[in-house]
């Protein structure tokens, strides 16, 4: 309050209420200008892909205006409102950076120097240690055109088998289960169908914080009489008023859904006609569920057996039911099985493929769906094709103009690639659109992998923790500086539009890949000058595949507001409900049941580590936080991570509590609340360095999807001395720290709630 009048009595509500983060965006406000134009686009963040307008004046993005798009109907979450503040952020990377050796500091370099060096290192490493010694890691926040090009670059320009992407941490369990059960990896219904449902089960998704804008569909369903069941070890904001909050013990989901199936069968609530006409494998699933009576399930899951009966009866007696699931179900060593167990319930009651009778995973990343369909996954080719299938290989080889024999075989998953880096099997790496030094589990192992690399190049628009230790850093565009398609969690293909030119020397990722390919002698296969040229090749490559995009063009997407794939020809309207009429994508048109046995998590609690640690998101931040930890309003809301503990563990709010696992220890401030199970603690994962949740998590993988078990490991909690400090996000050389009136991160008070700090907390 310096400089102001000193009041003898300061009434409540008085202060400067600017908050510790200063309130203003780091790039400072730009006043509304005459001649402003609105560029229609979508959000940069999650898989909902809310429509928004960017306000553009004099070549700068100066703000956001809500857009009445079918997906979000004007609505935005706190991240969406401030997404535009990334564009002119002073932390942006403006030139390539390079260092001569690992210990030397990063210094600005020219594009030619940076790209020549990368191409030279690729050639040196591949000629010495084989093509597979150089790997590529992509990400699902890029447009579909870019993710397609990542796959092509790895297979055609590098001819390495080692390519994977960060969807491995996010969507792969759901994708694998959907392919097994339905023959296609796609949500069954658009979210608008939710308004017609009678019972919804939300399985392991904190919808209110991870996909806030989708809440309108769930609340809309309840307005019309639907009952809501939320299965989550925490009483999330969505679970607070649910008809049934099922506080399942982390790592026991498969048992719970088998328990539902058991009661449905026992009480004659299955749909035998649907089972007979539209499915295969019922007997095995039914017989397996017979061993999961409510009493046993209650014991495994830490639930009252009567609640299992109640939920099964709600579901079994309703006309139309909906199952939605998220990472809470999927990020387990039996993540694929967990999803299959939910699908069993859905299929046994015929609750799929109709308005109000829906099914789908809530995809996490912006292009989580599109980013996994067109070939940056280790075992996939464009169009959802299989890299091990000779016909699929032949088709793609033809489109790419190469010999099928030159297409590498399938590679390994992201975390396995990091282990191969530590063993020297992968010696060089190009990373784009990911931040594994925050996002992968068991960080000590990840660090060893990256430290062992002979050469590492990384592209990003902010200097992520992973980019900060690379040998060459390439400055790339934010979403508002390029155009391209993105597929949201419903399977709806929408388009990001370009609002402004990139700053400084930043260039888009697809240009970087084309330039590298040219230097590696494959320029003729990468002669793209605009994203639409990449899309046109992608459309042909995907044609006839499961994920058929042939009929999707920019013009069609802009005219309709979005097209649901598959869309096999230009006159095709798209496919909002792929399972309409009980028709599935296996050759016989039938869905598959799978008998699922519950297995304990990779690391069950024991005497030394008696508590279950689970991790997840908070509403103000996104993924590894490289974007959101730099946006003042979001930092204001939630400046640091915490450990959420039940009052029975004996801590008070703010106490330093050390969380110890077999892999590491971190001291967080305690957030004491009755909304979490007493045998479980929670840590949000968006922060880096010594406070990263992934210092603690276990790197056990699902045997099918190779997804890590982020959602449960064994820990103990004990009184600590002082909370571990939160590091400031890395910035490029020469960038001066913000001079705004912001308190350093280390001095900010922890949030009082899972959703952050209230604005009355001054």
């Amino acid at each position, binding site marked *: 309050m310096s400089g102001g009048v000193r009041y003898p009595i300061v009434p409540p*509500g008085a202060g400067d209420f600017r908050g510790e983060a200063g309130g203003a965006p780091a790039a400072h406000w730009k006043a509304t200008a005459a001649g402003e134009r609105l560029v229609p686009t979508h959000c940069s963040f999650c898989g909902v892909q809310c429509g928004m307008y960017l306000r553009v004046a004099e070549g700068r993005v100066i703000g956001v205006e809500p857009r009445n798009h079918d997906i979000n109907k004007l609505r935005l979450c706190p991240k969406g409102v401030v997404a535009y503040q990334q564009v002119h952020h002073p932390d942006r990377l403006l030139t390539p950076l390079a260092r001569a050796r690992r210990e030397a500091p990063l210094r600005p370099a020219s594009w030619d120097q940076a790209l020549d060096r990368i191409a030279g290192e690729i050639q040196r490493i591949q000629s010495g240690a084989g093509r597979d010694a150089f790997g590529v890691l992509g990400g699902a926040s890029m447009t579909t055109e870019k993710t397609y090009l990542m796959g092509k670059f790895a297979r055609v320009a590098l001819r390495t088998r080692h390519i994977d992407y960060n969807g491995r941490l996010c969507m792969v369990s759901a994708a694998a289960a959907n392919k097994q059960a339905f023959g296609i990896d796609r949500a069954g219904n658009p979210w608008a169908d939710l308004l017609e449902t009678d019972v919804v089960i939300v399985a392991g998704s904190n919808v209110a914080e991870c996909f806030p804008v989708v809440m309108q569909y769930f*609340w809309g369903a309840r307005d019309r009489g639907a009952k809501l069941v939320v299965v989550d070890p925490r009483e999330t904001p969505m679970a607070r008023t649910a008809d049934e909050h099922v506080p399942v013990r982390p790592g026991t989901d498969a048992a719970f859904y088998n328990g539902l199936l058991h009661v449905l069968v026992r009480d004659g609530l299955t749909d035998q006609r649907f089972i007979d006409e539209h499915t295969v494998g019922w007997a095995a699933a039914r017989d397996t569920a017979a061993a999961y009576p409510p009493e046993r399930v209650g014991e495994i899951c830490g639930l009252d057996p009567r609640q299992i009966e109640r939920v099964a009866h709600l579901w079994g007696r309703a006309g139309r039911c909906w199952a939605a699931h998220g990472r809470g179900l999927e990020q387990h060593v039996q993540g694929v099985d967990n999803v299959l167990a939910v699908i069993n319930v859905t299929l046994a009651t015929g609750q799929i493929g109709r308005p109000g009778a829906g099914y789908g995973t809530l995809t996490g990343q912006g292009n989580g769906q599109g980013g996994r369909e067109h070939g940056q996954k280790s075992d996939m080719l464009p169009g959802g094709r299989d890299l091990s299938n000779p016909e699929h290989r032949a088709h793609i080889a033809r489109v790419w103009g190469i010999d099928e024999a030159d297409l590498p075989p399938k590679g390994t998953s992201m975390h396995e690639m990091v282990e191969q880096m530590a063993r020297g099997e992968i010696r060089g790496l190009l990373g784009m659109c990911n931040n594994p030094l925050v996002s992968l589990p068991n960080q000590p192992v990840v660090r060893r992998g990256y430290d062992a690399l002979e050469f590492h190049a990384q592209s990003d628009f902010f200097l992520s923790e992973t980019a900060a230790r690379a040998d060459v850093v390439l400055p790339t565009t934010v979403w508002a500086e390029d155009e391209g398609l993105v597929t949201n969690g419903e399977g709806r293909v929408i388009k990001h539009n370009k609002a402004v030119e990139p700053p400084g020397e930043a260039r888009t990722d697809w240009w970087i890949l084309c330039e590298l390919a040219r230097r590696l002698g494959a320029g003729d296969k990468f002669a793209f000058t605009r994203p639409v040229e990449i899309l046109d090749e992608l459309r042909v490559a995907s044609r006839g595949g499961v994920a058929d995009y042939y009929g999707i063009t920019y013009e069609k997407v802009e005219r309709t507001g979005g097209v649901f794939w598959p869309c096999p020809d230009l006159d095709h309207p798209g496919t909002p409900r792929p399972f309409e009429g009980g028709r599935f994508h296996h050759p016989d048109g039938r869905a598959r049941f799978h008998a699922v046995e519950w297995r304990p998590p990779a690391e069950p609690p024991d005497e030394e580590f008696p508590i279950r640690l689970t991790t997840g998101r908070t509403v103000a931040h996104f993924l590894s936080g490289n974007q959101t930890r730099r946006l003042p309003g979001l930092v204001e809301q939630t400046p640091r991570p915490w450990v959420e503990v039940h009052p029975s563990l004996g801590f008070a709010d703010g106490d330093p509590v050390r969380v110890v696992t077999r892999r590491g220890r971190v001291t967080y401030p305690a957030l004491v609340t009755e909304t979490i199970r007493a045998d479980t603690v929670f840590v949000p994962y968006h922060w880096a360095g010594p406070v990263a949740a992934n210092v603690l998590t276990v790197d056990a993988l699902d045997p099918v999807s190779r997804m890590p078990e982020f959602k449960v490991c064994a820990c103990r909690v004990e009184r600590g001395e002082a909370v571990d400090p939160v590091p400031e996000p890395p910035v490029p050389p020469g960038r001066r720290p913000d001079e705004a009136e912001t308190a350093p991160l280390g001095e900010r008070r922890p949030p009082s709630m899972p959703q952050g700090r209230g604005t009355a907390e001054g």
Partner: protein
Amino acid sequence: MMGTTLFIDPGRCIGCQACVAACRECDSHRGRSMIHLDYVEAGRSTAALPTVCMHCEDPVAPCAQVCPADAILVTADGVVQEAAKERCIGCGNCVVACPFGVPKLDVVEMLQYKCNLCYDRTSVGLAPMCATVCPTGALFYGSPEELEADRPGAHAADVFTFGDAAVRTGAAVVVPDGHAGPVPGGW
């Protein structure tokens, strides 16, 4: 209750603070939110509650009535405006008088700030920014009929009692099924 107004529906609020982020975007108070977002049962529940100006109708605008500088005006459509910057003397009377604790006083600038229902938007037929972006409809802008169409059967209250005093407001609050009469004790 104003014809087209803001409805607050606490049962739907998820505490995400999209309203706070959106309010910070306003050109007249950029960087500062006029919305009080309270987590009302910290430690026991994830419940949250946004408080915006209720635009008191009877008695009309207590904040304006106690303003010694006549800085707070009520427009013909019932919207209680923020204190006019050229008139406000930063005395804080309005902060004390408001039954809902809405106005904020910047003691550096010596100016009052408060929600004015995004008058730049609502006066031209747009919804306020908070209610436009609110992911859940916990902040809803429209007529009672539009509220009914959006969520069938919803009831709203616009009278609040504080001891013996009652205040009728321009904005309204969605109340639970079966609740009749005024909302006691503020809320």
